[in-house]
């Protein structure tokens, strides 16, 4: 198994700062904005971004967790995963939603997330923020609005996100070659 470092702790920190600056540029005071972290791994990034935005503009943007297990289009076609908590303590009606996940791959998770979101109202606008965009792997016409880093990968490779918030010893992102 070969591992290649894509982002180290320092670069990751700079990347997250840049993503937050871009969000501030587009959302201003975040008056109607909410953050939705995708379960299971997007929520850690969502929490980091919420915290960083608070440090930058003293505004706590409301955050929810979205679990898409029941909205997948491949249920019964593969083994079922663990169902995580779905917690959205506010209505999405007329809100500007920032959907956050760590890695964008085929786009199927995002499709299911868009489907799941509709149960909570009709948002005014939905944007997608991802830390890693795996280019050339999309199955669906889905594109992110904010990207931490774009990497060229093939389907057999994997992106490993290690965050301290997830219990790892360091903040690092790796590209793994499976033989």
């Amino acid at each position, binding site marked *: 198994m070969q591992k290649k470092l894509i982002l180290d702790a320092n670069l990751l920190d700079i990347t997250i700062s840049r993503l937050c600056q871009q969000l501030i540029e587009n959302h201003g005071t975040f008056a109607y904005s909410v953050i939705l972290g995708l379960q299971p791994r997007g929520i850690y990034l969502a929490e980091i971004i919420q915290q960083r935005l608070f440090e930058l503009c003293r505004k706590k943007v409301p955050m929810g967790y979205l*679990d898409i*297990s*029941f*909205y*997948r289009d491949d*249920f*019964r*076609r*593969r*083994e*079922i*995963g*663990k*169902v*995580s*908590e*779905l*917690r959205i303590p506010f*209505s999405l009606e007329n809100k500007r939603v920032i959907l956050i996940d760590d890695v964008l791959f085929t786009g199927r998770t995002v499709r299911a997330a868009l*489907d*799941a979101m*509709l*149960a*909570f*109202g009709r948002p005014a606008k939905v944007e997608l923020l991802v830390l890693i965009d795996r280019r050339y792997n999309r199955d669906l016409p889905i594109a992110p609005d904010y990207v931490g880093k774009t990497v060229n990968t093939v389907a057999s490779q994997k992106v490993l996100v290690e965050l301290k918030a997830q219990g790892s010893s360091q903040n690092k992102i790796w590209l793994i070659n499976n033989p």
Partner: protein
Amino acid sequence: MPQLSQPHLLGIKNLTARDIELIFETADNFKNIINQPIKKVPALRDVTVANVFFENSTRTRISFELAEKRLSADIVNFSASSSSVKKGETLLDTVNNILAMKVDMVVMRHASPGAPHFLSRHIKASVINAGDGTHEHPTQALLDAYSIREKLGAIEGKKVVLIGDILHSRVALSNIFALKKLGAEVKVCGPPTLLPRHIRNLGIDVELNLRKALEWCDVANILRIQLERQQLRYFPSLREYALYYGINLSLLNSLNKKITIMHPGPINRGVELSSDAADSAHSIILDQVENGVAIRMAVLYLLAGKQA
């Protein structure tokens, strides 16, 4: 990844404590979903479920039907009273005919104990037991245990007493299995004629005095007097039963602690449970009904995932 150990839900007896925990964790998520503005998820979009009821039912049947609809499954309903069973068709023939129309899961209620077990050995679809005679009623026991967990925070170490017609109650047997597996202490209470002879072999105690049983317990699950299953007279009169084993609000208020009251329904008001007690703050009867849908959604979802 977590999965049920069984391809069918025939009874609590075959489940492990881990299975029950998995069903509860999944039901937590479904409980969130059924409290959303849009209560429907597309998870079982490509699954067809047959609800085959050879015995009358309102609550269980509506609960299953709602659970299936909220998971977006396709449903066919079948009740024995309006079908070819009346013309002498066998159980296996009836169900095989339904399955020939490409049905993935069968929810069955039958008056004969073991009918779903028999069926599960002969067909490919997943079978969910919705009550088989006086044997088991697994989804009821799951939702009862889930409601206790929700009300008291845990099940382990809690004291639960089942009161009333234990002899004819499938709810009692399934409850005993479920609660024992989850680490609760269980007693049964009722007139000796309505207690099965070897009930102690299940590892539970018997208490004949209602007041002592209530003083001991944290939760009292009160069972219905099943007059339709009683071919003999097990007690002199309903009035006498109500006098010795009926629960009312003044009895509950005279206890030295506050206990939780449950009933699987339908209630014989004024017999095993009086109206003032059934509608009091002690009662979580309507929570049980709400949780029933979430529990059945979890069971359907996990069994459907198992077929993958």
